[in-house]
């Protein structure tokens, strides 16, 4: 197992390096001057050009530039957004909490609901319930999240006037304490609902597939032959065998909590990473865009390794190999 984890960690490290190098070359391959990209504005002043040149060693050979770039990043300096006149890392930290509030809530909801529905459908394969749920899963699976968000706004806000359409708090009222929390919860309903609905089919399908597999496993026959209750076999043996793929899927999905909800956040004007990305695109704020990408990919790589470790602990077949 030590070797396995070592190998996975190496892959993670390589991934981070590849992402860094990729970012570096994207800046250089893109049409236009790397200085304008790194400085973060179209017409930088001579002073800013000089500062940027010195900081990233732009007059040095390209491999020195690459090294300087990586060293800067390793210090935690993700660059500077000129448009917002602030360090990229600071901008990201400000928004991260809001995004995690949405994505983590909906990730857990989708896991629980999706798995429960998957188990319900597996109880009687081919039944009306199974067919209806599978159809709904297909439709949701094929739906762009941002469009579903718009439709929920149309239904629940514009028509039924139940929930607010945008933002995280009511800007006109300045709530505090419990009232503030309730206000945020009210604003969360639609975006969380959208993300949950989009996430459900994945868990539904994986649960159904792995249960179908596991119910055919030979140990079922043995336990049945031994006179064990079908319910007990399901609860103790099938469930434990079937749940591992679900947990891995959940773990892997969690890796994308930072950036996975960008388009939905934009629909609901949620003050998270998605909005940050959108404004970076609109104002051509490349340092910000790349900073977000770096943070996302590094966190994905690290998280994936953690998931592997967890999986290795949970599954004895890996633990002892």
């Amino acid at each position: 197992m030590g070797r396995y984890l070592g190998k996975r960690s190496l892959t993670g490290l390589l991934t981070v390096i590849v992402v860094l190098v990729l970012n570096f070359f994207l800046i250089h391959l893109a049409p236009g001057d790397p200085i304008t990209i790194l400085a973060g504005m179209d017409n930088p002043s001579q002073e800013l050009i000089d500062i940027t040149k010195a900081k990233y060693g732009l007059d040095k050979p390209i491999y020195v530039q690459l090294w300087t770039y990586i060293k800067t990043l390793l210090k935690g300096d993700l660059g500077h957004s000129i448009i917002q006149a602030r360090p990229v890392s600071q901008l990201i930290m400000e928004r991260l909490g809001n995004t995690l509030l949405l994505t983590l809530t909906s990730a857990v909801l989708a896991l629980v609901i999706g798995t429960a529905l998957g188990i319900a459908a597996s109880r009687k394969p081919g039944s009306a319930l199974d067919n209806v749920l599978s159809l709904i899963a297909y439709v949701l699976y094929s739906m762009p999240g941002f469009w579903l968000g718009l439709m929920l706004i149309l239904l629940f806000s514009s028509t039924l006037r139940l929930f607010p359409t945008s933002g995280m708090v009511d800007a006109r009222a300045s709530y505090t304490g419990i009232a503030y929390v309730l206000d945020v919860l009210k604003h969360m309903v639609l975006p969380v609902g959208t993300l949950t609905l989009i996430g459900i089919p994945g868990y539904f399908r994986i649960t159904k597939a792995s249960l179908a597999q596991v119910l055919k496993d030979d140990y079922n026959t043995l336990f049945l032959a031994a006179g064990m209750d079908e319910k007990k076999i399901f609860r103790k043996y099938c469930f434990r065998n079937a749940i591992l793929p679900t947990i891995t899927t959940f773990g892997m999905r969690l890796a994308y909590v930072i950036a996975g909800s960008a388009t939905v956040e934009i629909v609901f004007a949620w003050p998270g990473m998605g909005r940050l990305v959108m404004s970076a695109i609109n104002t051509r704020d490349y340092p910000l865009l790349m900073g977000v990408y770096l943070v996302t990919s590094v966190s994905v790589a690290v998280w994936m390794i953690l998931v592997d470790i967890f999986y290795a602990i949970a599954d004895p077949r890996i633990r002892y190999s």
Partner: protein
Amino acid sequence: MGEKQNLLSLEDVCIGYETPTGTVRAVVNATLSLSAGDTLGIVGESGSGKSTLAHGILRLLPKTAVVTGRMMFQDVDLLRCDAKTLKDLRWKDIAVVFQKSMNSLSPVHKVGEQIVDIYRVHVPQATKEEVYDRMRHLLSVVNLPDRVLDLYPHQLSGGMLQRISISLSLIHQPKLVIFDEATTALDVVTQGQVLSEIRRLQSEMHVTSILITHDVSVVAETCRRVAVMYAGHLMEVGPVDQVLVSPRHPYTQGLLASFPSLSGARRRLRGIPGTLPDLKAEPKGCVFAPRCPKAFDRCHESMPPAVDTGTGCTVKCHLEGSER
């Protein structure tokens, strides 16, 4: 009458699997009886329906299987008894060593934990220690150390899992144990060991057993009676010293011809040209007729019934009776 001592008796048992393209007739009109303390071997080519019959006895077949006929275990009608009776019977009275023992334990639970669970089905209040004590003894019978209980199935070899399955089948001292190809997946040396262990269990623990195999020599060494199965039919049933010494059915004769001598080197079945028929098609004549060297007109018209030869054997062949 000897009938009373029968532990298990099958009458006209038919088992078919419903598939989208037709019914697979896996067992057809099987009639068989087994008295307490007896050992019965079932031999036949791969796909002849041996496992289907074994699973049918404990009602372990998939929902697609349709079973008709009568299966009596002592005075319990196995096909019609209620769920409770069946559950009480399973493993306590009838246990099975499955063909796929390698996969017959859950891969993510320890062997011991699963065995404790199985034991507690019939003895709910048993402590882990009691079960381990009992298993320790049974494991020593099959030459395994008891540390295997604390391991996961993938940490054990196929042969070890097979032995665990064998000792697990004896945990409640059942009246009948069905060994479904319990030795086929093993190498020759291990196979020999396991077989001699089975023989010892039979004599020491007085278990009645059914030994399913496609290896005639295994039956010759281990069993008292034998049933030869072909395409779902029990072609010839009788004492080993009759069926394997002076076989009456052409299929049995072919089967034996492919084994040079019963104690000599084992060979795969090769003596009979042709292959098993398609079990989905309803055959017009005898299922073996297309491959039978002695087939005559009647053989292509109807399936022969099981005929008692008067020497304790039953044979499904038109040659019986027509000759004499």
